[in-house]
C-alpha cells in the first residue's frame, strides 16, 4: 500500500542560507512562490482592461474582491476596510494553496503546521498591535464582558484570557488538520483501489467501491479547501474586529 504520508514530504531543491537561517528552496517554497505569482498574475492580467463592462476574467477578479470586501464589511463595518488588503491576502493565499493541493501529485503547503501556525501568529500579533494602538489599555476590556456579576467576574476574565490566548492554536490547527486529514483520507482510499486490484480474484471486483468513495471525498475536499480558506479569513476579520471594538 502506498505511503499516505509520502505526499507531505519536504523536498529540498536548492540549499540556501540567508543570514544564518536555513532558507533552502523546497517544494513548499516553490508552491508558495507559485501561488503568489498566480494570484498577482491573475489579478493584474484580468484587470488590465479596466473595463466598465467587465470581461469574464475581470468579473471573476471583481467577484473575489467583492466577496472578501463583503466579508470584511459584515464583520468590521466600513472602518474595517483599512485591513481589507490583509484579509484579502490571507484568504486568497490560503485558497490558492489549498486548490493547488487538490491537483493530483501536487504538494499542499497548508498541510504543514509551520505555515498555518505562522499565518495564525501573524493574525494574532496584528490583532494585538492594532488593539493596543487603537485602544491603549482599553484593549483589556476585551476580557471583561459587560453585565457579569462581580462575584464570578474573575473566573470569566480568566476564561476570556485563556480563550484569547488559545485563538492562534485553534486558528492554525483547524486549517492544518482539515487539509492534512483530507489528503490522508484521499490517499488511503486511493491505496485501497490499488490494493484491491492487486489482490487475486473476487476482491478485485470490489475496487470500484473505494473509487466512488474517493470521488465523493474529492468533491468534499474541494469544498473544504474553499471553506477552510473562508473560515480562516472570517476568523481573521472577527479577531480584527475585536481589536477595533474591544468592549462587547
Amino acid at each position, binding site marked *: 500500500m502506498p505511503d499516505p504520508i509520502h505526499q*507531505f514530504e519536504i523536498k529540498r531543491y536548492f540549499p540556501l542560507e540567508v543570514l544564518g537561517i536555513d532558507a533552502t528552496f523546497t517544494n513548499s517554497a516553490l508552491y508558495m*512562490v507559485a501561488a503568489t505569482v498566480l494570484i498577482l498574475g491573475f*489579478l493584474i492580467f484580468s484587470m488590465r482592461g*479596466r473595463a466598465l463592462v467587465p470581461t469574464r476574467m475581470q468579473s471573476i477578479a471583481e467577484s473575489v*474582491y467583492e466577496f472578501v470586501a463583503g466579508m470584511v464589511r459584515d464583520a468590521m463595518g466600513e472602518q474595517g476596510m483599512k485591513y481589507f488588503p*490583509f484579509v484579502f*491576502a490571507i484568504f486568497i493565499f490560503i485558497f490558492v494553496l489549498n486548490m493547488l493541493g487538490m491537483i493530483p501529485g501536487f504538494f499542499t*503547503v497548508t498541510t504543514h503546521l509551520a*505555515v498555518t501556525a505562522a499565518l495564525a501568529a501573524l493574525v494574532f500579533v496584528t490583532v494585538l498591535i492594532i488593539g493596543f494602538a487603537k485602544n491603549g489599555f482599553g484593549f483589556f476590556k476585551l476580557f471583561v464582558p459587560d453585565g457579569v456579576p462581580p462575584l464570578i467576574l474573575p473566573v470569566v476574565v480568566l476564561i476570556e484570557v485563556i480563550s484569547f490566548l488559545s485563538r492562534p492554536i485553534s486558528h492554525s490547527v483547524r486549517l492544518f488538520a482539515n487539509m492534512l486529514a483530507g489528503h490522508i483520507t484521499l490517499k488511503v482510499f486511493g491505496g485501497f483501489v490499488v490494493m484491491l486490484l492487486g489482490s487475486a480474484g473476487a476482491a478485485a471486483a470490489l475496487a470500484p467501491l473505494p473509487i466512488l468513495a474517493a470521488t465523493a471525498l474529492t468533491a468534499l475536499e474541494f469544498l473544504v479547501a474553499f471553506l477552510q480558506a473562508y473560515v480562516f479569513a472570517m476568523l481573521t476579520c472577527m479577531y480584527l474586529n475585536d481589536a477595533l471594538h474591544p468592549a462587547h
Partner: protein
Amino acid sequence: MANTVTTGSDAPHDLSTGTEVPHDAGHAKAFPPLDPAHFAPQLFWLALSFGALYIILSRVALPRVSEVIEERRDRIQRDFDAAERLKDETDKALNGYEKALADARSNASSIANKEREVLNAEVAKEQAKVEDQISAKLTEAEARIAETKTKALQGVNTIAADTAVAIVAKLVGDTVSADEAKSALPANSQD
C-alpha cells in the same frame, strides 16, 4: 545485510547502499508536517512570498480592482443623476406648457368678457340715446298736438261767437258785438 558485507568493495554496490540508507532513515524521521527540521525554510519562504503578495496586492492589484468598481458605481450614479435631471427638466417644461395653455385660456375668456362688456355698454348707450331721441320727439309731438288743440279750440270759440252773432242778427235783427257773444260763451271753453 548483504549490503553491509560489500560496503566499500564495489562501486555499484556502494551507490545502491548510498540510496538505500537515507530512504530507511526517511521512514524513521518525524512526521513531515510537524518536522522542525523544515520549519526554517518554510517560514522563510512564507515570509517572502506572503510579504510580497501583501505588498503588491495592497499597492498595485487591489487598488486597480477598487478603482474600476468605484468608477463603475460613480458612472451609474452619474447616469442616474442625469436621468433624474432630465426628468425634472421634462416635468418643468410640461408644467410650463400647461401653465401657458391655462393662461391663454383665461386670457381668451377675459378678452371675450371685456369685448362683451364693451359691446353691452355701447348697446346700452345707443339704446339710451335712441330712447332719449324718441322721448324728445314724443314731447315735441305732444306739445304740437296741444298747441294745435288750443288753436283749434280757439277757432271753435271764434266760430261759435261769429255763428252766435249771425244767429242773433237773423233771429232778433239786433246786432251783437263779437265780444259780447264771446263773453256769453262758457268761460272754460276758451282754454
